C-alpha cells in the first residue's frame, strides 16, 4: 500500500510493522513526530506495544536495554543532545548484546542551539558497538528498520543498530512510501527469541563483574567478532529483503553511476540525493562522475572502498561533521581503509552542511570542480565549503 509518509512517520510505522514489544522514548525536536505517531497508532488501536514515556533519553536507552534482556523486541528514537545523553547506555546495550533498534534524527549539537541537520551526533557514537546505517529516503527508512531487526537479532550478531536520518531534510519531508503487508513482514522477521533471558524459573545474573585476568577481554573480542559476522548478515538480509519486497539499497555502499567514474564522491544521508542530481547534469556533458553513498558506517565497509579505489582516480569525501583537531571522520576512515592498497587514488575531504547549512547543487558543483582541479592533497587535504571568510 502506498502512503505519503515523512521520515519520522516511516520510522513509527517501521516499529509497528516490526511489532516492537517495548518502546521507550523521550521527545526531542525533530524526532517528536515519531513518538507522537506511535502514541496515535496505540490510541486508535492499530498498534499493541508497551510505550514507556520516560523522563530522559538516558532512561529511554536504559529501559530499552532492560526490556531487551527480558526478551522483548525494543525500539527507541532520539536525536542530537538526546543521543549524547544516551552515550553511556549505548555501550551498555552493545556489551549486553541487546539487539535494540534505534532511529536517530541527525541534528547539530549546541551551542549555539541548532535543530538542523548535522552528523556529529551519530559520528560521535561510532565506537559504542552499535551498527550504524544512514538513510536517504523515507522508503529507505522504513525498509532499513525492518532489515535492522533481522540483522541485529541474528543469533551470531546480537548487537544493537542505529538508523540515522537527516533532521527535517528527511524527518519532516513527506514522500511516497510503499508500506509492506504485515504478513510479509512477519514472515521476513519472525519473532525475537534470544538464547538467554531474565526468567524467574531460570535465574541468571546479567553483567557480572569481570576481573582483569578473567573474561572481560574475551567478551570484548566477542563483540568485535559479532561485528565482523554482521558484515555478511547485512548483505544476506539485504538480498532476502530484495527478494521479498523488491527493493534494495546496495548493502554497505549505494553506488550511483560509478562504473566508469573517474571521480567518486562519498556522502551519507539526504545530501546524496542532491549529489545524484549534480551527477546527472555533469554526465550529460560527458563528465565521468559517480556517487558512493555511505549507507553503513559500522561495521565499516573496508573492502567495498578498496574496490572503488581500484577504479576511481579521485575520491571526494563529504563529511557533515568534523573531528576537531583532525578532519572529517568519514574522510579519515576511508583513507585508512585504502592505506594498504598499492595504487591509491587522490582522496580529498570536504566539510559541509554543519548545523543544517543547506548542501545545495551549487555546493556540490563547487566540490566537484575542486576535485577535478586537485592534483595533490599534501598542502590542503580537506576544505570547508561555503565558509564566510
Amino acid at each position, binding site marked *: 500500500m502506498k502512503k505519503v509518509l515523512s521520515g519520522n512517520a516511516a520510522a513509527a510505522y517501521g516499529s509497528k510493522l516490526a511489532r516492537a*514489544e*517495548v518502546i*521507550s522514548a523521550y521527545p526531542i525536536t525533530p524526532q517528536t513526530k515519531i513518538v507522537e505517531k506511535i502514541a496515535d497508532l496505540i490510541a486508535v488501536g492499530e498498534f499493541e*506495544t*508497551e510505550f*514507556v*514515556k*520516560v*523522563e*530522559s533519553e*538516558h*532512561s*529511554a536507552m*536504559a*529501559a*530499552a*536495554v*532492560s*526490556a*531487551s*534482556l*527480558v*526478551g*522483548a523486541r*525494543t525500539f527507541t528514537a532520539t536525536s542530537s543532545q538526546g543521543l549524547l545523553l544516551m552515550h*553511556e*547506555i549505548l555501550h*551498555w546495550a552493545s556489551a549486553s548484546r541487546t539487539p535494540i533498534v534505534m532511529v536517530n534524527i541527525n541534528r547539530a549539537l549546541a551551542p549555539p542551539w541548532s535543530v538542523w541537520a548535522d552528523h556529529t551526533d551519530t559520528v560521535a557514537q561510532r565506537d559504542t558497538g552499535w551498527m550504524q546505517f544512514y538513510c536517504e529516503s523515507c522508503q529507505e527508512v522504513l525498509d532499513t528498520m525492518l532489515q535492522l531487526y533481522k540483522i541485529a537479532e541474528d543469533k551470531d550478531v546480537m548487537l544493537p543498530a542505529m538508523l540515522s536520518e537527516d533532521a527535517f531534510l528527511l524527518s519532516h519531508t513527506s514522500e511516497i512510501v510503499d508500506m509492506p503487508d504485515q504478513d510479509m513482514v512477519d514472515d521476513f522477521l519472525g519473532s525475537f527469541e534470544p538464547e538467554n533471558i*531474565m*526468567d*524467574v524459573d*531460570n*535465574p*541468571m*545474573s*546479567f*553483567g*557480572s*563483574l*569481570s*576481573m582483569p585476568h*578473567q*573474561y572481560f577481554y574475551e567478551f570484548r573480542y566477542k563483540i568485535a567478532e559479532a561485528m565482523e559476522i554482521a558484515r555478511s548478515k547485512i548483505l544476506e538480509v539485504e538480498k532476502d529483503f530484495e527478494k521479498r519486497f523488491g527493493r534494495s539499497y546496495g548493502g554497505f555502499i549505494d553506488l550511483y553511476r560509478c562504473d566508469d567514474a573517474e571521480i567518486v564522491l562519498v556522502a551519507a544521508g539526504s545530501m546524496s540525493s542532491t549529489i545524484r542530481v549534480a551527477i546527472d547534469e555533469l554526465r550529460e556533458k560527458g563528465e565521468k562522475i559517480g556517487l558512493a553513498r555511505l549507507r553503513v558506517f559500522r561495521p565499516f565497509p573496508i573492502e567495498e572502498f578498496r574496490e572503488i579505489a581500484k577504479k576511481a582516480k579521485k575520491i571526494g569525501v563529504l563529511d557533515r561533521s568534523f573531528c576537531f583537531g583532525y578532519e572529517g571522520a568519514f574522510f579519515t576512515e576511508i583513507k585508512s581503509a585504502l592505506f594498504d592498497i598499492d595504487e591509491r587514488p587522490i582522496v580529498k575531504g570536504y566539510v559541509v552542511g554543519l548545523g543544517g547549512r543547506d548542501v545545495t547543487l551549487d555546493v556540490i558543483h563547487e566540490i566537484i570542480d575542486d576535485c577535478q582541479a586537485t592534483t595533490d592533497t599534501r598542502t590542503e587535504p580537506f576544505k570547508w565549503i561555503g565558509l564566510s571568510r
Partner: protein
Amino acid sequence: MKITLPEDEIMEKGHMACLGCGGALAMRYLLKALGRKTMVAIPACCWAVIPGVFPYSCLEVPLQYVAFEATGAAISGIEAALKAKGKKEGTTVVGWAGDGGTLDIGIQALSGAVERGHDVKYVCYDNEAYMNTGIQRSSATPKGAWTTTTPVGNTRFWKKTNKKNIVEIMAAHDIPYTCTASVAYPEDLIKKAKKMKDIKGPCYMHIYAPCPTGWKYPPEKTIELSRLATETCIFPIYEVTYGKYKLNKNIRDEKKKPVLEYLKTQGRFRKLDEETVQSIQHYVDDEWIKLKKKVECFGEEK
C-alpha cells in the same frame, strides 16, 4: 528453634560483603519476603560487587546490573517487557540501589519511574555515603559525619548539611506506599516488603543499613547501632500507605535516647564539637515532632 522469618535463603553464602554488612542483611531479608519470583536490577553500589565475580552470583533470582543512574529506568523496562510478554502477573520487579544511586545520581530515573506508575518496588539500602568507591559523602550522609571527601582533622571539615529526606520526597510523589525499615527489625522489614509485593503499583522502601567499614565501628555492632538509630529518633520507622502516615516503632518521650549516645558509637563522628552535636539533636527533635504531627493529622483512621 524460634523462627520469626521465612526460612528460604534466596541470598546464598559466599558473597563478597564486608564483615557485618548491613546491606547484605537487608537483601537477605528482602528476598525472604518477596520470594523467588522476583527480578532485581542493581546499579553501581556495594551490591554490584557483593554477588561475586562472573560467572557466579549469590542471588538466586534473575539479576541485571545496570548503570549507576539507571535503576528507575531499568525496572520500568523490565516491567514493561514482562507486561508485553504476558509474564508480569506474579512477578515482583525490584530496583535495589544504595543511597548515592538513589538520592543523588539516580533520583531522576527513580522519580520518573514512580510517577509513571509502573508496578515496581524500589528499595534503597542506605549506608550514608559512597561506600563502594571508598566512603565519599553523598546527600544521604548525615551532618557531622567524616567521609573521605569531608575529612576531619584540625580543619573540622565534616559534612555541614543535613541528610536529604528522600522518604518524604518519595511520599510526595503520591505513590501507593512509602516506608522505612531497619536491619535491626527484620520482622517489620519483611512485613513491609510483603505489603509492597501485594500492592499493584510503585512502592518505595528505605532501609537503614549500617556500614562498619565506612562508619568506623566494630562489625559486631551493626544491629545494636541500628536499634540505637531508631531509639534516638535519628532513623524513625514509619510508613505512608496511600497518603496515610503510620509510626511502626513509636518512641515514647521518656524512652527517647539522646543522639550523642548514637554518635559516640562511630568513629566518623569522633571529633564532633558540642555545638554541632547540639544542632544535630535539635534537627532530630524537630524532624521527629514533624513526623508525629503528620501521623496525628494524616494517620490512619482509628
